[in-house]
């Protein structure tokens, strides 16, 4: 979901970019091995939620840029919704709402 969110914000990104975005957004609270991003990307590609395209970076390096597919956007909305339901429920239980 984090990857999808990152892509939603920035349209297209390569792997390193996604890692950076997630780290910045979470202000380094979520700290995982950066490499585990790649199996996750393969899973998303396989499910058809993101698509990848090779092009050049600013420094003229070949890199694969990922973008959200319509199916992926749909999935993201679904996940956000269910996430909001869950967090909303937790908040109500904790009496914060």
């Amino acid at each position: 979901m984090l990857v999808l969110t990152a892509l939603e914000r920035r349209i297209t990104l390569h792997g390193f970019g996604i890692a950076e975005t997630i780290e910045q957004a979470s202000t380094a609270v979520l700290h995982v091995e950066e490499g585990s991003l790649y199996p996750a990307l393969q899973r998303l590609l396989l499910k058809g939620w993101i698509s990848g395209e090779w092009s050049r970076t600013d420094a003229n390096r070949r890199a694969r840029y990922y973008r959200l597919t319509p199916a992926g956007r749909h999935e993201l909305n679904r996940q956000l919704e269910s996430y909001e339901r869950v967090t909303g429920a937790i908040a109500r239980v904790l009496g914060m709402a």
Partner: protein
Amino acid sequence: MLRRLWFLLTRGRRQRELDDEMRLHLELRAAVYQRDGMAGEEAARKARVRFGNRLKLREESVDVWGLAAVDDAAGDLRHAFRRLQRQPGRALVVVLTLAIGIGATTAMFSLIDAMLFKPAPWDSTGRLAWVVGLDGGSLSPRSVPYPDYLAYRDRATAWAGLAAEGGTAMAVGTRDPQRLLGGVVSGNYFEVLGLRAEVGRTFTPADDVAPGGHPVVVLGHSLWMGQFGSSPRAVGERLTINGQPFTIIGVAPRGFTNVAFATDPNQLWIPMAMYSTLMPNRATLNQPASPQWPRVRVVGRLAEDSSIAAADAEMRVISNGLETAGTPRDKQRGVRVLSLRGGLTPWEQADLGPMFGLLAIVPLFVLFVACANAANVLIAYHQARRREFAMRRAIGASRGRLVRQLLAESFVLAIGAAVVGAAAAPVLTRLIVFLGDVPIDLIALLTPDRRGLVAATVTAVGAILIFGLAPAMAATRVDVLPILKEEGTTATGSRGPARLRRALVVAQVALSLALLVIAGLFLQSLSRTLRVDPGFDPRGLAVVGVDTGLLSYTSEQRADFAARFLERASGLAGVTAVAAADVLPLGGVRYSATLRSESGTSSPASLVQASPAYFTTLALPMVRGRTFTTAEAATDVPVAIISASAAQRLWPGEDPLGQSVRTDDPNQPPRQVIGVVRDSTWLFLDEVPAGTLYFPLPPRSAAVFAVRSREDPAKTLASLRDIARALDPNVPVTQAQTMAERIDRSVNLRRALVALLGVLGAVTLILAAIGIYGVTAHGVSVRTREVGIRMALGARAADVLRLIVRENVRLSFVGIAIGLGLSTVGAAVLSSFLFGMTPRDGAVFLGGAFVLCGVAAVASYLPARRAASLDLLRALRHE
């Protein structure tokens, strides 16, 4: 799913791309660190630390594609090949056993497929459909009169074209003409079917307008090859048919003989409009009332925007309109539109459907028993590898992994068996057709096609599940520790596989018993059928058909021919009676009608035109009244003789003599009953006689002669043929059989079924015997040490023998009990095919059980004797 496959297929490139991406990531991260002031080396190291284990992550990413499963499967298959190569004998036994099952199943599939489902070999569009008349709610071959066809053709909009075909025997050639089956077809016939001429042209609608106007003929491919040596110059030549000159205009494409491609193969075709020229003595096309006139079959090509359902609806409406039109014809009860599939006509398919259902199940029995045998072999083999499995489980292989590997071996075996089986299937199909003695176009039927291949593959996969999965599951259900601790191995073996093997033996015994009993029931039904009293005495009867209707004789010439033939035949040595008729019993032909009395009662009946001596010649007893006089026959006085059951239905409790009876043919006058005869069977021996109405035979209509002789009727036949030749060498002798031969032929389908069931039953029995033998032999070898100990403790050879045989006998009894239950169910389901039989026909069931007991005893005695004759010391030292 597709995307996964795509990922797998492009996995080489994808792996390189992934590597590139990861490398880029590391470089970028290192660059960030360097910007923060770290040294190059240190930055790269920290980047790697932060990234994690690159190799492992790479593996994980690749695994996402499902690559592991594929690599494993390939490895399993390679492994399986190596294992099987090490024991080629065992692999061969399993492959051959399975091949029998797969071959039998595939052969039966091709046959049933060809008969019921396969599109015709010359039809690639699938838009052809039958228009079939209904008679009393069921599909009828004879209920589309030609004028109705014309109405359908002209009014229906659902069709791109609607064609008609009829068929008849034709005398082709001048001297000693050949009798060939020919199609009589509408002018658009070939065009509607989408058939192009091989040479020359086919008919056009213009050939089928003026009656007698276009004496043209299209040759069948085989006739063209046989008589004209495939010469293109045949086109334009003359061909004499029924004494009339025709011109050859073309040759039909190879492989086409009939719309229903597995039935009567036509050798030539003439236009409908030539029918009256060809058959001057028969009813004309537009005079459809006579029951003797064979109706046309109607076949059409659906219009582009139409469908079967739309065509059906439209045809019903048109047909209802025809009924109220009041034209004199048989009562027409609507039509149905059915898509053209399979080599049989729809009405044949409806009749034979249940029989094909039975035939489809039988090879599955064989397949299952074969699978059980294969499973037995595998179980024995797996058992010997139990230590290996336990070891592998102990060092971390999952059970699923082991099962997959064993299944890979089964897979290789099954594929081998499918190849052998599929190769053998056409031979088996040929055998079935040969046993069936039915005129089937073999080329159309046996061309190996994708459907047969698919069938073989599906069967093989099913076989893997039956024979591979269960043993693999049983073999891998191992307790690791006890097996690994066992020093010398063996002992009694684990219980799971042993129980499975016993279950398989029970199933084999049960299935082969069921098959044997059913084959036995059919055999008994056949012999009972042959003992049926047909009502007349078939002994000493010879039948000769001489169709003068195929010649351009006048009525007087035909009557003269019949009279001279009868006179000469009665002069033969030993001949006691001769008679003529238009049709005789048990020849496969019947003219049926509905009889009505004046009081409104009705009865179904066959119509027969018979000469006065018919009843004495067939020895069909006269119950009351008298037979026709010669004068009545000559002038066709409206009198009739009726069979007892029809008389009973029409005039219950009254004297039938002097009563008046009508057929449903409005052109026929009411007839006065002058005699009552015993019922006789007409089409099949085992039918319930429908009743028969006999008219006096006008001498010109004589088509079949019956001759009763004290001599061997086969000898009489030869003399009768000579008489026909002497009278006119051009006359085609359409049939020459003894009545016994006719009876034989009338049961040929039944006999074929018995032969088929018998062969398959025997195969199953042999497989089951091998199975029992194998299980016992393996059991003995596993128990060698036990036997040794028993003998050391004083058991005699006979005791050992009893010990081992007893267990098998117990298993066989269980199997026999289940088998008897199965056959009872089977017999109940099939009771409509079994003639004159209570479904529980004790003797057959008992006999089957007895045979299986014997087989089981012998199959277990042989290995048991080996155990009993073991050398004591060797047995104890075993392993």
